[in-house]
């Protein structure tokens, strides 16, 4: 049945405080079941690639860390790796360790943030408040290393800008214990909760075949049984030398995505601990004099998946072309596979489950397949999602 989209409905009004960025989803429904989904982007388009071509090589990391505030360690690292490949620079070992530590701390804070938001979407505010409370010590560690809670700006071509103060290392190791303890507690609490099992299992399934067909990356792929991880497949920084596991689940539903993220935070704590213990001495950056003509690529496993940067230089002091591809860009189209056929009340959490970075499923309008008129706003969807959880909860009480 064809939908007449004569009037795109853009309700600025119902923006929920937890919705972070502007994005417009148009769902087509037949009764309770979603039959089609349309995604519109570019509310947040800032022209970063063009701005990047007007900046010097050393200034670009500050710009690309602002592509996404939550991936603000991954994007600069991918860019810097691209430039280092271009200019054949090998950063000192200590810088590689510092990069690993910052990237893994970022993964912990990003995954815990997602767990909290997922709890909020299904009306489980306790999970939301807990998760965000336990995220604070991780931000404190990042602040201790880089001086900022987000937007670290710590990586530069040839190494790192700030070193980890050697006196801080024992304290950081000590601070990791309560973090790991709380992560384990949170993981067990989520895995043992019968309501979350009933609410999230079998919801928004992305099959392995679909995951490969849509070329999704990161936890979205790993939850569907596709074991891809840049950290293992093409090791950068110090990941090749440390002991950790790639977490995969087979089910592909929202619950599997939550499990992958929670277990990955435990692996990340393991990585940070090893890196801090093995942290070698020496300088944290090498001097870079000039960038020769050429091209380079860098890719990094961001919390949401693979982020990829391409840089070309003509021998001047600015990149002549800089291309960035963020993981959400390939993960968002998989909604076509995971949302169609779902109930309305499950859509909210399914959309949130890939943790879209540019977009936390903000603009939603539901179009009736028969009449082509707007039925639900975003708030209605959130309310329905919560009512569903409430119904399940009553069954257990």
């Amino acid at each position, binding site marked *: 049945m064809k939908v007449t989209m004569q009037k795109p409905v853009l309700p600025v009004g119902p923006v929920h405080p937890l919705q972070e960025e*502007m994005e417009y989803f148009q769902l087509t429904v037949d009764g309770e079941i979603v039959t089609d989904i349309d995604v519109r982007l570019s509310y947040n388009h800032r022209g970063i690639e063009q701005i990047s071509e007007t900046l010097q090589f050393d200034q670009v990391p500050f710009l690309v860390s602002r592509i996404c505030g939550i991936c603000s360690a991954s994007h600069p690292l991918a860019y810097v790796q691209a430039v280092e490949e271009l200019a054949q620079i090998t950063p000192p070992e200590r810088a590689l360790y510092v990069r690993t530590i910052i990237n893994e701390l970022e993964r912990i804070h990003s995954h815990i943030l997602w767990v909290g938001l997922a709890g909020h979407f299904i009306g489980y505010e306790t999970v939301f408040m807990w998760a965000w409370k336990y995220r604070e010590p991780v931000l404190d560690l990042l602040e201790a290393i880089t001086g900022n809670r987000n937007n670290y700006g710590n990586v530069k071509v040839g190494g790192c800008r700030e070193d980890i103060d050697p006196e801080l290392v024992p304290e950081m190791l000590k601070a990791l214990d309560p973090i790991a303890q709380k992560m384990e507690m949170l993981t067990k609490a989520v895995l043992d909760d019968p309501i979350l099992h009933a609410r999230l299992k079998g919801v928004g399934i992305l099959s392995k075949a679909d995951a490969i067909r849509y070329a999704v990356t990161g936890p979205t792929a790993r939850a569907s049984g596709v074991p891809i991880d840049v950290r293992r497949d093409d090791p950068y920084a110090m990941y090749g030398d440390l002991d950790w596991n790639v977490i995969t689940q087979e089910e592909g539903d929202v619950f599997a995505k939550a499990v992958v993220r929670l277990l990955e935070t435990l692996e990340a704590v393991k990585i940070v601990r090893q890196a801090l213990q093995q942290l070698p001495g020496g300088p944290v950056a090498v001097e870079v004099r000039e960038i020769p003509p050429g091209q380079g690529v860098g890719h990094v496993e961001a919390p949401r998946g693979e982020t990829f940067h391409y840089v070309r230089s003509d021998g001047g002091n600015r990149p002549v072309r800089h291309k960035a591809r963020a993981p959400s860009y390939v993960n968002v189209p998989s909604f076509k596979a995971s949302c169609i056929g779902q109930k309305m009340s499950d859509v909210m959490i399914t959309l949130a489950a890939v943790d879209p970075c540019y977009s936390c499923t903000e603009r939603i309008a539901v179009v009736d397949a028969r009449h082509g008129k707007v039925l639900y706003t975003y708030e209605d969807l959130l309310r329905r999602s919560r009512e569903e959880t409430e119904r399940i909860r009553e069954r257990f009480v």
Partner: protein
Amino acid sequence: MSWKRWSLKRSPWVFHVNTGACNNCDIEVVDCLTPRFDVERFGIKLVGSPRHADALLVTGGVTRQAAPRLIRAYQQAPKPCVVFAIGACACDLGIFHSGYHMVGPVDKIIREVDPHAIIAYVPGCPPKPEAMISGVVRALAAL
């Protein structure tokens, strides 16, 4: 002081608009709600509609696509309404000042529709939650 302004100073309800931010200011805004900072103690509450809001928290420089939506959100909010420009981008576009898709900082867009709008600035990239709370407190004291 009119009673309307006086009423603004007691437990302000805020509405959050993202006009092209990088998520950073937004997660710090949400962070203010969670247990460590917990601004709801002071009656500061995030609400789901600009029609309920005493203040708008605007994050991010305004992109071409977001500008008409920001204006609509501002027009829907009951007046008087304080607009908080949160973060460097909202205050003066920050690092994105030369972007071709940016139409201007928040104050420019709001002043186009209401020259007498009350606008407060919280600089920082991102401002820490403490800075945001301090900005709100100082703006309310200045009303």
